[in-house]
């Protein structure tokens, strides 16, 4: 394991401190936790938006904390959901009186721990609503689909709605709309190594790739021989298009999983765009880069979000989060 770290058991704490040190005017770390919140949280009368999950997905989730996006992100250990007490601290810290909205990725761990936190918060009289993101079409059964890169669109749009003064119900409605209209599919060329584990999460031969990968270093749904960028892009995009009828306008995200050079993401994007053009889907905005990673995994995912006028406006709204500029 080659990593630039101090102690495998301290990576999340060190990272949180390093992040706040980079943006001391924008972010703060809640004492005794690895929760990162907007420096000015709680914002009075604004619904607070809280997300989070295991660490190792950087810039998710703390990179999306900022005016116009998340109010706080709770960071668990690497690939491990934050515990209810941490999420509860995040909820309390961002509650400006209008309630708190949770953006949860659909993993049993995240769902359980966030739900327990919500129960604790409700017991203290804080109104809590949530959305569970399940954009990963690699899984057939819709209820057990994972939340992956599409989550970033939920952060952005729910965050914008809150910034504009949306109520908890309005935010819930628009977040649900994003979840209904967003689909992703990923693949990987290499595994990654959880610092505390010290060994790669799985083994892949020099000529193999995994299709239908999540963001926790797990193997994919199918192991195949490596093929060209064009064919990979086609396989991912086709799977997404097959799952949901995309028509009209869409936002596209070509997301790198950690160690894929931007060069390769651009090459994938070229083909994705040409497939969409062929299908008559109008690309309203494209995001190419690392938005939701899996440590140093090599690979990428393709996300499509069908847009209506409301979603376009919210996607376009300004964001001050370090990792999302809009």
């Amino acid at each position, binding site marked *: 394991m080659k990593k630039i770290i101090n102690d495998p058991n301290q990576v999340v704490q060190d990272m949180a401190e390093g992040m706040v040190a980079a943006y001391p005017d924008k972010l703060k770390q809640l004492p005794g936790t690895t929760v990162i919140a907007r420096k000015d949280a709680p914002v009075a009368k604004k619904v607070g938006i809280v997300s989070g999950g*295991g660490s190792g997905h950087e810039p998710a989730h703390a990179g999306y904390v900022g005016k116009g996006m998340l109010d706080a992100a709770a960071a*668990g*250990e*690497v*690939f*491990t*959901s*934050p*515990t*209810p*007490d941490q999420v509860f601290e995040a909820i309390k810290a961002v509650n400006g009186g209008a309630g708190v909205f949770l953006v949860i990725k659909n*993993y*049993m*761990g995240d769902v*359980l*721990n966030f739900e*327990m936190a919500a129960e604790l918060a409700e017991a203290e009289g804080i109104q809590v609503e949530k959305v569970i993101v399940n954009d990963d079409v*690699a*899984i057939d059964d819709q209820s*057990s689909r*994972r939340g992956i890169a599409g989550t970033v669109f939920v952060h952005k749009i729910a965050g914008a709605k809150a910034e504009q003064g949306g109520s908890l119900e309005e935010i819930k409605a628009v977040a649900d709309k994003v979840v209904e209209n967003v689909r992703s599919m990923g693949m990987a060329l290499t595994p990654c190594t*959880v610092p*505390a*584990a010290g*060994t790669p*999460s*799985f083994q892949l031969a020099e000529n193999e790739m995994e299709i239908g990968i*999540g963001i*926790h*270093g*797990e*193997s994919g*749904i199918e192991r195949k021989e490596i093929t060209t960028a064009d064919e990979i892009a086609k396989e991912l995009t086709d799977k997404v298009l097959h799952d949901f009828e995309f028509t009209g306008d869409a936002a596209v995200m070509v997301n790198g999983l950690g160690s894929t050079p931007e060069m390769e993401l651009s090459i994938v994007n070229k083909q994705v765009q040409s497939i969409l053009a062929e299908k008559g889907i109008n690309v309203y905005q494209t995001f190419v880069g690392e938005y939701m990673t899996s440590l140093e995994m090599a690979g990428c995912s393709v996300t499509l979000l069908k847009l209506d006028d409301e979603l376009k406006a919210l996607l376009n709204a300004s964001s001050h989060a370090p990792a999302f500029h809009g």
Partner: protein
Amino acid sequence: MELNVQDIAAWIEKSNEKMQANKEYLTTLDQEIGDGDHGINMVRGFQEAASKITKQDYTKPADVLKDTAIMLMSKVGGASGPLFGTAFLKLSMTVKGNDTIDFGTFANGLEESVNGIKQRGKATEGEKTLVDVWSKMADYFRREKDFDQDKIAEEAKNAMEQTIDMMATKGRAAYFKERSIGHVDPGSASSFYIFQALAEVIGRRD
């Protein structure tokens, strides 16, 4: 035989020792059909539970169990934290007030634990999760009359091993569908260690 507060504390400490000793093995299991953190998660949780319990003086078994539950919930993270936490919390609630725990009460507690786990995780038997060990153990306790070291360990081992042939339909392993067959469920393996630890505590008392 009845379990007193020292027995329960010893149970948690022994469980911790087993998690430490098998951390790598649990992680390997979770790398095969999960995300490779189960050993790390369990060690983190039981480490904290054990050190909390060692530092403190308890008079009631329920308090040891409750602190264990809280530590697991607040330190493990991942799916297993709330589930194991719930298991110990339900056990604690069942034996609340008691100075010692007799076999029947323990059996009732396990039944509550299983129900709690199933409810939280929305899982049932046969889905290749820790439910499969806890549920089999609750059945076993319902059938039997008294604590028996060897039988408890054996029963838990069998339950764990039966998860090998199952196809996962809950948790991360479910993503692999048929590919999940042929592997021990990590959460069932750690559950086995918990019951193995219990058996050893009973053995010490015999």
